[in-house]
């Protein structure tokens, strides 16, 4: 299934987890639990040692995953070992993409994208790669038929917005507020403003950063989002459960996923204030 198709039957629920957090085996089960809970797309983090866009929740998850031995090659094996039926998006930082490859001569995005495609990845979010620097990765994605998703921030305006519009595919990731990732108690009022700026873009719009409850999900979809992206609220469950049985934590993740998905669906039923 392609990324765009995942948005075809109503609002998409897109959870994020860091692959390998807190261990390879547990993490496989957690990702599969998210699918049972209603995930339409899964963003799977490939851990990088300097996650500058991440708040403390995801940063600590990345540390746990790295300490448990996650590497780019293990990550691709992880993707192959996963038993899920929804499209997977690889979320990472550019240095790992750029360093991948057997030799100095072939280093760069191409071998990375080739290997990702073979493992079954559908697209990428590369957090520290602005559209201006994304040429080589965009080319490799086109060659292997993968999508390249860009994050639109509340501060993105004018020419930069146009440049992203030209280069984005799959969906656009709408960052709902300033700052780093992390679950919040309030829905940012940037959300509606951001969505209205993108109203005539012809890719689905998925809103993320700070979504924590089914109620948040409902409000964001009601505000016009085609999907919701939830990371820290789920990673919090993984973090709280590091000393518990994998099955218990997986059950809680599935339940939380269900709450978020239901919220998104409710939001789609609410008439928009247009």
């Amino acid at each position, binding site marked *: 299934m392609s990324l765009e198709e995942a948005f075809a039957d109503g609002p998409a629920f897109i959870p994020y987890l860091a692959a390998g957090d807190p261990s390879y085996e547990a993490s496989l089960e957690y990702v599969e639990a998210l699918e049972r809970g209603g995930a339409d797309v899964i963003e799977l983090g490939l851990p990088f040692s300097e996650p*500058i866009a991440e708040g403390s929740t995801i940063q600590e998850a990345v540390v746990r995953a790295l300490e448990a031995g996650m590497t*780019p090659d293990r990550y691709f094996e992880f993707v192959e070992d996963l038993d899920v039926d929804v499209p997977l998006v690889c979320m990472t930082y550019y240095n790992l993409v750029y*360093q991948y490859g057997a030799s100095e001569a072939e280093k760069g995005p191409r071998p990375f994208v080739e290997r990702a495609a073979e493992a079954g990845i559908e697209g990428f979010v590369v957090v*520290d790669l602005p559209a*201006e620097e994304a040429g080589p990765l965009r080319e490799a994605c086109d060659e292997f038929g993968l999508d390249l998703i860009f994050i639109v*921030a*509340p*501060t993105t305006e004018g020419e930069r917005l146009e440049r992203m519009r030209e280069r984005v595919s799959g969906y656009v990731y709408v960052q709902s507020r300033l700052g780093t990732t992390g679950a919040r108690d309030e829905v940012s009022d940037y959300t509606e403003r951001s969505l209205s700026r993108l109203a005539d873009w012809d890719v689905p719009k998925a809103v993320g950063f700070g979504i924590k409850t089914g109620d948040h999900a409902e409000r964001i979809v009601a505000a016009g989002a085609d999907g919701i992206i939830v990371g820290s609220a789920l990673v919090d469950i993984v973090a709280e459960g590091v000393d518990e049985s994998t099955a218990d934590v997986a059950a809680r993740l599935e339940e939380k996923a269900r709450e978020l998905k239901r919220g998104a669906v409710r939001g789609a039923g609410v008439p928009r204030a247009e």
Partner: protein
Amino acid sequence: MSSQGKFGDYGGQYVPEVLMPAIEELADAYERYVLENEDGFMDEFRARLRDFGGRPIPLQRADQLSARYDREVYLKREDLLHGGAHKLNNALGQVLLAKYMGKERIVAETGAGQHGTATAMAAAHLDMPCEVYMGETDIARQRPNVFRMRTNGAEVTPVTTGRGTLKEAISETMRDWATTVEDTHYVIGSVVGPHPFPEMVRTFQAVISEEAREQTRERTGGLPDAVLACAGGGSNTMGAFHHFVDDEDVDLYAVEAGGSSLSVDEAEGVAPNSASLSTGEEAVLHGARTKVLQDTDGQVMESHSVSAGLDYAGVGPELAHLVDEGRVRAVNVDDDAALEAFHRLSQDEGIIPALETAHAFGYLEKYHDDIGETVVVNVSGRGDKDLETVIEETMDRDLDIAPDMGVFREVGGGRL
């Protein structure tokens, strides 16, 4: 915009989207105020460097070292700049620029605490609130500077991730900036980060070589054969080199921290050095493509050096480029050589250097025969901040040159 800020393949702008507008705004402000002197920015900067900073800074002949090495050794005394290190040149420039841009708050990161101190001073001087992120390892080994920052009214926020050094502090400051970008300026501490930082910081620091070039001419009637400076991120190096880059006969030496060894432990993700120019590989870190200590997967390593200010896994992109081009020689000395040089300069010349600076003198001690008749060494900072570290490190070693440490052993703990 994307063709700007490139030094060969190095440099660029690799930052989360939320920061892109801020660095574009900064690039624009840099061009107008710094390069074109709009609203008399550069005039005010130079006036404040003079009155607040104490510039121009003397170029001093080092009489004992000149005799010892049988050549002319000159010291560019950046340790005499207000605050005790070259860092004020940049901090004052950036805080003033933030003011011209209408920003209301300053954040900064610091390793040795020297950049944090300079930023806190500049922010107090220009009446701006300031928050400084510092790794907990560095807080422990640089207590005097932490206290200086607090005394100047800055908040000092400990960073506990990783090994708690400069790399982690930079990441944490970027996180703060991403949240507060609309009214906050990030005063980065070296010639690193996304464009326009590497070029802008170099421009503020280039006053070092502008003066040194003129001063050597006045003193010797010509140019030096070599300029030596220690390289952490590379700001005092680029500052000391910039106006000599076109003088092909002047050899430029960037002296890195060899730590305890140049080898790396890939499995542990640790390099017992911070010699990223000598042993690093091209990577994308903290907003720029440059040379970085990393493992084969591209994960960034923890670096090590006895001097907190050199303890960083990356280096400025322009310096990396000049090394690749063969214009700058990347060399290094280890912790022991730096400590010895610390004691030698203190005893021979009455100048207690920063441990960072001591690396440049460690190189001079070993290789003086190969580096020409007239040598300028950039004394990037004074060593007051390092005294606690030097006491502990000296007690742990058998250094012939060190003063008798007996009294410290008896009093115990090694803490003054």
